[in-house]
């Protein structure tokens, strides 16, 4: 070895926060690891259980004012990349969020304002769905006067009308919307643009408009016999049930489609006691619906008819009597990457049907507001939902997605608009590369089984159709489940680096906080990399010796 070679192999630790998979995958952009950390590390931070839980709630509510709602309905992409998955199951983030959401409602926690000085600009929002309400919330807490218009008598958009009671009780959603109202957001309900308020009035009364109109126009099946009684779109059916005026379906209901609306419609119809068949033209693997929801539908007795497409709706007089179904097989992949279903010649068959619910797809409905936006059916925007200085948009009108995405659209548009109005620099794009693999040491963490929310037995669900299928976990389960978080990429104070450094290179921080339990003293570093290799969460990484 030449002189000095030994020093060349030395490396020093660097304390660098890394993006965790949960946060990277969360549709709303919530700092999942951050709010879990506050509860999991509450003893080190000197917080009582209640204070820690409330603080976690505030961290969630900062970006998502609907934790109790999303805790129930979100397909939780956050859990998909969880580094704990391979050990003993992903952290039950969705169940945790639901507990937090219910906690917030039960404790009567209110949303926090960010800026108290009132701003002169008047903001109008079209559509009181998740995108519009999220936008309204973020603007109102920054001091803007916000008015939200919605043609429906109840706010919430698809959350209100498209999601069955057994998945999301109305009082939960109402409670979370109420908090937004308490910030001073004015909701003008039952006020359709173009019917009750003209586009011109809207323009003169507001400096900036946000379009959160969703995608409410159901696409047709395009088959013979579709027009007439006994056939509904998925959203039509679900919203009439949610309005308390369910249509009479009869004994044999056929639902067409493989998305979440189709599954919700099938499960809701099943709760009337009808036999329900779900028709989907591809296989279960290709179904866009949340897998767990499909499983629940099967448990409840919904029959799946896969590789089956509707050919014709048969009627006797006006009444629907059957649906003729075409068998399909999977061919070459299409533009979406899924294999295209191809008809199998001469394989049509008839299914008895008293009602057909077509839940194939939806698109934005521009009736009455077409003059506001003259682009294509699906809104095209610049980053953060900006169409022009006065017009912004978000939610399903930009493309169908989960509620979390709509909430993020609303928030990001508000942040960018606020920056524009106040002459501040535009927000930066979030980074997306999450810490995984070798940097995380799962065997450091004690084994602990994943909490599962208790579920109502299938028979019970049919007897009381509005009762929630899953319950909220208890406080004890919540407090245990948070301890399962690896805190990927952020120091949680395991103290190993401090304890095992031969050179005393780590010093306890005066004010402990997640990610800031120890400060580095590189002068003392002997370059052995022990701390980096012991660090279970990937917070410490190697850098060449300074």
């Amino acid at each position, binding site marked *: *070895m*030449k*002189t*000095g*070679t*030994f*020093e*060349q*192999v*030395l490396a020093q630790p660097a304390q660098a926060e890394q993006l965790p998979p949960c946060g990277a995958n969360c549709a709303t952009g919530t700092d999942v690891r951050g709010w879990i950390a506050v509860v999991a590390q509450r*003893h*080190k931070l000197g917080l009582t259980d209640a204070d820690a839980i409330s603080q976690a709630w505030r961290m969630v509510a900062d970006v998502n004012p609907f934790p109790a709602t999303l805790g129930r309905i979100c397909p939780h992409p956050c859990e998909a990349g969880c580094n704990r998955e391979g050990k003993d199951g992903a952290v039950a983030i969705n169940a945790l969020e639901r507990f937090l959401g219910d906690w917030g409602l039960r404790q009567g926690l209110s949303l926090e304002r960010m800026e108290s000085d009132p701003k002169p600009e008047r903001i109008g929002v079209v559509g009181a769905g998740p995108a519009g309400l999220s936008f309204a919330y973020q603007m109102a807490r920054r001091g803007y006067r916000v008015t939200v218009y919605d043609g429906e008598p109840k706010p919430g958009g698809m959350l209100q009308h498209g999601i069955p009671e057994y998945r999301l009780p109305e009082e939960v959603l109402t409670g979370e919307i109420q908090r937004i109202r308490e910030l001073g957001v004015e909701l003008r309900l039952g006020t359709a643009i173009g019917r009750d308020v003209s586009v011109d009035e809207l323009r003169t009364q507001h400096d900036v408009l946000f379009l959160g109109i969703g995608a409410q126009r159901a696409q047709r099946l395009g088959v013979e016999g579709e027009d007439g009684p006994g056939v509904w779109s998925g959203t039509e059916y679900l919203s009439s049930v949610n309005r308390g005026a369910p249509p009479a379906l009869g004994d044999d209901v056929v639902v067409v489609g493989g998305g979440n609306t189709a599954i919700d419609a099938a499960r809701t119809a099943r709760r009337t006691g009808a036999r329900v068949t779900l028709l989907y033209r591809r296989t279960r693997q290709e179904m866009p619906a949340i897998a767990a929801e499909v499983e629940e539908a099967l448990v409840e007795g919904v029959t799946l008819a896969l590789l089956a497409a509707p050919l014709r709706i048969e009627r006797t007089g006006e009444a629907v009597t059957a649906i003729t179904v075409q068998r399909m097989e999977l061919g070459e992949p299409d533009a979406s990457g899924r294999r295209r279903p191809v008809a199998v010649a001469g394989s049509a068959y008839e299914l008895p049907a008293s009602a057909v619910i077509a839940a194939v797809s939806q698109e934005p409905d521009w009736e009455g507001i077409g003059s506001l936006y003259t682009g294509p059916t699906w809104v095209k925007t610049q980053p953060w939902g900006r169409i022009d200085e006065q017009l912004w948009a978000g939610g399903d009108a930009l493309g169908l997605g989960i509620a979390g995405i709509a909430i993020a659209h609303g928030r990001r548009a508000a942040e960018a608009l606020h920056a524009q109005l106040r002459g501040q620099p535009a927000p930066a794009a979030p980074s997306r590369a999450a810490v995984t693999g070798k940097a995380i040491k799962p*065997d*450091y963490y*004690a084994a602990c089984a994943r909490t599962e929310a208790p579920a109502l037995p299938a028979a019970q669900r049919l007897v009381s159709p509005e009762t929630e299928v899953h319950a909220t976990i208890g406080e004890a389960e919540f407090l245990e489940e948070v*301890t399962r978080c690896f805190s990927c990429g952020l120091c949680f*104070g*395991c*103290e*190993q680096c*401090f*304890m*095992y*450094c*031969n*050179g*005393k290179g780590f010093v306890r921080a005066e004010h402990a906080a997640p990610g800031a339990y120890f400060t580095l003293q590189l002068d003392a570093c*002997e*370059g*052995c*990399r*022990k701390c980096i*290799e*012991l660090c279970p969460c990937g917070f410490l990484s190697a850098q060449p010796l300074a």
Partner: protein
Amino acid sequence: MAFVERTVKEGDNLAAFFEGGEERRLTLTDGSRIAVIGGGPAGTFFTYFLLRLAESIDLDVSVDIYEPRSFAYQGPAGCNHCGGIVSESLVQLLATEGINLPPAVVQRGIESYVLHMDVGTVRIETPLQEKRIAAVFRGNGPRESEPLPVSGSFDGFLLELAASSGARVVRKLVSATSWDTGRPRVTCSDGTSATYDLLAVAAGINSQALQLFQEIAPGYQAPKTLKTFICEFRLPREALDKFIGPSMHVFLLDIPRLEFAALIPKGEFLTLCILGDDVDNALIDTFLSAPEVKACFPDGQVPAPACHCFPRVNVEAAAQLYGDRIVWIGDSGVARLYKDGIGSAYRVAKAAAKTVVHHGISAEDFRQHYGPACGRINSDNTIAKFIFGVSTLIQRVRFLRRGVLRMTANEQQRRAARRHMSTVLWDLFTGSAPYKEVLTRTFHPEFPAMLGWNLLAGNLARRRANGSKGNAHG
């Protein structure tokens, strides 16, 4: 009742029992809980002996060993940092205790050692058959090595042994200790805590754990330590066989601040240990550039080490290493100077275990029954300091080096029955015998005589050789 039976059975302490009164005595009873902080050799030996002794007198106690690290990790993260030399005498001693080192633990049997000095090199064969030594990895081998089986780590093997004796291994890091109505309480970094009847601290000196006791034991003073250096070089097996062989290579080089250095072959690796005064990167580079060292590597090229660390060694015992319900064992208390730390951990751990099971857990019990074992090591260390002083002198003075080299080489050549210098050096560098024995051996009348003769002869021969060389040049 267990106490009375036990005392009578053991046949001692009866007087103390009746005089002191039961309520004043601190002892382990059925259901007592013991916390051991640290799962290295001291902690695991202590646990093993404690549980075995307790069982032999039907005492039902439980032991929690706090060890957050996994010895399945490679590199420094899973290692307790030492040269990894276990003398045959210790191996045999452990075997008599029912602790048999599995073959997977022994990376290499060391059959000879080679002494390198600037004045020459001499190979010393095993003095006696039972004095072979075993080279082990404390953790799961160096960084980027072939993973060892679970039992392949020396410390991992001992921790498993303790667990199989009935101890619970708690994989948590202790972050605080306190007194809970007179009993020691241990709090972990995750906020959980537990109260025990006895706390045994076996936390070593290569962690910051000894800071945790300032409040509950203000009298305890951590041992004085010295920074050493250990690193691992990865070499092809053929190269190791050719250049190193089944030998430990010891270097007595006249490099400022260098006390002692050794190369020890283990599997596909070569472990380098350096002892010295304030070992730093400059000293390491100077050592690695020495021709005597380079000659031990293929093509004279020293590769970059796979891993390294600067472990601290105990050079002066801790003060006040016991109190009521608390005792320090292993490196955090007393340890043998420079060598055979595992052996001294074994001795003190066994003494401490005997004390707590057969006598009691008060400061007085430890003073009477544990203190003497520590004292023996301490006084041997005093002798050691003298011996190492002489060794340093030899290292620094060229003519002494020649004498030692010649005497040793002659002993090895003649296969003499009495190999005074060889045995002294072997024991000194392997730690196979107490330092007192090493010193005693030098008192043998033949030793100074032989050394004197070799000093003369070695340096005379050298002068002649130099003289003739000088003439040739002139």
